[in-house]
């Protein structure tokens, strides 16, 4: 007994999400005979209600899933392209697209949810949206994390055009909320009800789409109905890499999730598990591997299939492994300039039939671009903030361009059987965070929940490392001596992610969930 949360396990199905009421929404689907796809979509939709700063139907996202019936791994990217009418070259700084209607891309999440559901779910859109509708209509008591997020956003946006509509939606027009206050979103409830009744066409061609487009255009944005109608989530085959006796699967470029896999490939040449857990040897190896992989991603932000093969070629990985142990500092830029503060939410689910789904979704920044479409309760994304105003850059904001994305929902197999799903928020730290947690679980045998809660570090530009202060001071001192420029500001850092994962024991078929205490992570069972 140590004051920790209990292990949450079930043979019937598990959902792990960043908010208790969202995980419960997913669990409700499992409890009524739905599968992991139904559960993930219900939880994803509920997250847009209970954690409205982090995601919503107008955000973008991605999923990796094991389809038990077909015995295959699939990925679904529901990012959307730069609008066709985007004025390329007009902007010179990313920050110009941090707020306001010009930052908006077409909503991808609703289409993504619908694709997951219609391809592999068992319930109707109405069934899976029902918990989200009830939460929006009846209200959600605000947690400390909700409260801080809303109050920070209110403080930073006060005075911007459209602030009144945002404030009406999330603070009842008070511009401020307190913990425990009930957030009701009747407009969003009505919007979700209309979608449940009439389908996603409401948004992609229908009345809701018209409302969004008209409002965006009235604020000077460039989104059109044609952009909405062009939204088409892309199913694909994953990119996969071997780590120990596991194969880790995640999204292909333009997702940058390959950085996660490359980190693991580098570490596969070592046995960090032989070192002391959380000791200098363990952390130095993992941090150097993370840096090496991130530098590759910076060098090749959107690699072609051929370049991707080259990056993962044995000789190329072997060179990186040698670099890991050469004792020389590894430094460089790990993020594009003016990178946005990351905000996303990750969830994982598994069911008794053997399906496993991991989904990560985002509005770009907290509450996206801050524009709430009046009468709809829908908050729009600022995904274009992640693009580059330089028209020659890889992520150039050019009409029709599909931007890269750090979202990296992942599923892990052992012997062609899925055993683990994990995903996190954290922007350009996502791959770093997932690698640290996986090493903790796989190499050090930490239980999944302990691995999720274990102290983590974020590796930043140059030699800068921001590490949770729960690492031992002595170890951090030893790592400083090895050249890491370490800050340790807090015991728990929200920027170190919100990782939600499930693990399945292939013998007993027991599914165990893990949820990140850095946010309001919670695990619910069928």
């Amino acid at each position, binding site marked *: 007994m140590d004051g920790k949360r*209990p292990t949450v396990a079930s*043979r019937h199905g598990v959902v792990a999400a960043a908010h*208790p009421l969202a995980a419960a929404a997913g669990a409700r689907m499992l*409890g009524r005979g739905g599968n992991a796809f139904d559960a993930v979509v219900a939880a994803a939709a509920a997250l847009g209600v209970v954690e409205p700063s982090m995601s919503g139907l107008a955000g973008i996202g991605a999923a990796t899933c094991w389809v038990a019936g077909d015995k295959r791994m699939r990925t679904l990217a529901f990012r959307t392209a730069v609008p066709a009418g985007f004025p390329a070259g007009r902007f010179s700084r990313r920050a110009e697209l941090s707020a306001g209607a010009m930052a908006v891309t077409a909503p991808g999440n609703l289409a993504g949810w619908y694709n997951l559901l219609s391809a592999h779910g068992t319930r109707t859109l109405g069934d899976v949206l029902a918990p989200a509708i009830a939460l929006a209509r009846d209200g959600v008591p605000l947690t400390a994390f909700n409260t801080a997020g809303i109050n920070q956003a209110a403080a930073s946006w006060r005075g911007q055009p459209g602030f009144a509509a945002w404030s009406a939606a999330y603070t009842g027009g008070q511009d401020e909320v307190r913990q425990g206050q009930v957030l009701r979103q009747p407009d969003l409830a009505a919007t979700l009800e209309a979608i449940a009744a009439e389908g996603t066409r409401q948004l992609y061609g229908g009345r809701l789409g018209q409302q969004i487009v008209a409002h965006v255009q009235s604020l000077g944005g460039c989104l059109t109905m044609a952009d909405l109608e062009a939204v088409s989530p892309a199913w694909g085959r994953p990119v996969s890499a071997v780590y120990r006796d596991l194969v880790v699967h995640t999204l292909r470029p333009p997702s940058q999730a390959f950085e996660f896999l490359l980190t693991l490939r580098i570490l596969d040449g070592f046995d960090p598990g032989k070192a002391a857990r959380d000791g200098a040897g363990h952390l130095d190896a993992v941090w150097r591997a993370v840096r090496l992989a991130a530098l590759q991603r910076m060098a090749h932000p959107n690699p072609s299939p051929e370049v991707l093969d080259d990056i993962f070629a044995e000789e190329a990985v072997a060179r990186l492994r040698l670099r890991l142990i050469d004792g020389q500092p590894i430094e460089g830029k790990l993020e594009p300039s003016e990178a946005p503060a990351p905000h996303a939410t990750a969830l994982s689910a598994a069911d008794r039939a053997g399906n496993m789904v991991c989904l990560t979704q985002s509005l770009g920044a907290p509450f996206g671009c801050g524009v709430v479409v009046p009468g709809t309760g829908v908050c729009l994304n600022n995904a274009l903030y992640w693009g580059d105003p330089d028209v020659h850059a890889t992520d150039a904001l050019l009409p029709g361009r599909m931007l890269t994305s750090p979202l990296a929902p992942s599923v892990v197999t052992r012997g062609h059987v899925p055993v683990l799903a994990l995903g996190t928020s954290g922007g350009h730290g996502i791959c770093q965070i997932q690698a640290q947690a996986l090493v903790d679980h796989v190499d050090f045998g930490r239980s999944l929940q302990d691995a999720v809660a274990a102290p983590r570090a974020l590796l930043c530009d140059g030699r800068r490392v921001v590490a949770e202060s729960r690492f031992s001071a002595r170890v951090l001192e030893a790592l400083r001596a090895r050249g890491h420029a370490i800050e340790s500001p807090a*015991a728990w850092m929200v920027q170190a992610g919100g990782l939600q994962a499930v693990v399945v024991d292939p013998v007993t078929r027991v599914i165990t969930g893990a949820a990140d*205490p850095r946010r309001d*992570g919670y695990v619910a069972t069928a």
Partner: protein
Amino acid sequence: MDGKRPTIASLHGMVAAGHPAAVQAGAKLLAAGGNAFDAAVATAAALGVVEPGISGLAGMGMATCYIAAEQHVRTLDFVPRLPAAYAGGGLGCGTPGNLAGWCELAKAHGRKKLHDIFAPAVALARDGHMLIEFAGASTIKARHALQELPFFEDWRSTYLGHGSGAPGPGHVMCQPDLARTLETIASEGPEHFYRGALGRKVIAHLQSRGGCVTMPDMAAVSPLWLEPLAAAYRGLEVHAPPLPGDGARFLRALRILDGFDLAAMERGGADELDTVWRAIRLAAEAGGSLPDESVATLRARLRAALPVETPQPPDPVLTSSFAVVDREGNAVCITHSLGGLFGCGVVVPGTGICLNNLLPREPPGAGLALPLAPAIATRDGKPLLLLGSPGGDGGSQAQLQVLVQHLDHGLAIQDAIEAPRARLGAGQLVQAERRMPAAAVEALRRRGHVVEAAADWTDPVGAVQAIAIDQQSGDPQTAVATGGADPRRDGYVAVP
């Protein structure tokens, strides 16, 4: 954020109990349109599957319920009378009361069929559940404790014979017999057990092991709705069970403490702890429900700072507590028990039923008295707080300490539960969780308390599961419930 559990708050009802699978069973009933009574019974039945050493249909218990339709708090007593032939000694197995209690709760105030209510427990028993921290450790402990008994093989094959993996955390326990038993009861009703074939099978086996319960004892089982005891505390009315429950002791301590301004004392400081601990001891020493002048006397004794000694407490009884609320305003708090770990250790072959050992070695003068004190606090007639704790006579001590943290110091219910607690034992002995401030503990030793440092977290100080309700809106439909679950066991909160 700080690594703690998330706050779990909902307008749609919730369940707080000592096991994640059991709370989910209750939440499932709430999600399917059941009310707090349906959910409470589903949770109780599921606890019987996932913590079979402490809970089960053959145990006994008491429920404190706020019935929204009546706007009234009532207690259900499902501690059956002593068996007619009971003369002390033996296995100590009393007449099973839990199943009767569950069925009465569901029939009187629930709206779901027993089949639906038992469905989650049946699925857990049939398909198996993985032993987690507390339940896993309990199973290992029980296996050592019971292996010399002549009927150990029945126990072993029931709990370790159908699953996979070594006993202890990680083992998957399947209980196909119990699944069938629950299904049969769901279709045939509790009479199957209390008057029918299942009961005869259980009684025949029990008698073959030396038990004294007879079918007439079984047929006489009839849960009783009672008026709870009540006491005022800080403007609230706190309700807890009368005999055979232990609410009186809990309420006596509250009445004594109501004369002291704990909020003005340093939280966790020596003054506060000294006051609370002495109140607990004085309440244990007194008996019955107190006239006001006795309360005044006891408060004076508390202020006099003279030592208060507690007699040796009775043998520990393991209990389990849980709380449920629904969106209609109903609230149910239950504490139940099998006696020792896995009761008397007798499992009836083919049924998955484990029998209790709640009878004392010596026949009591009056009826049974058990340490059950599930409590509901109301203000202006509306429930504000449900809390219950296991811990034998320490259960009501635990409830009191959490109540003080929550009401007097304004801690959120989860924080109030996690705050370090103490268990007061015989004489002046105190087992205090090591997280208590060292300076305060030292000062308390100087005041005469014999403080032993326990672990940072230890379950002798109880395992409180609780729900706090914000009634400010004045409408049960919009009241916010916030759950609290005790990490000293595998406590968890679920919402529909």
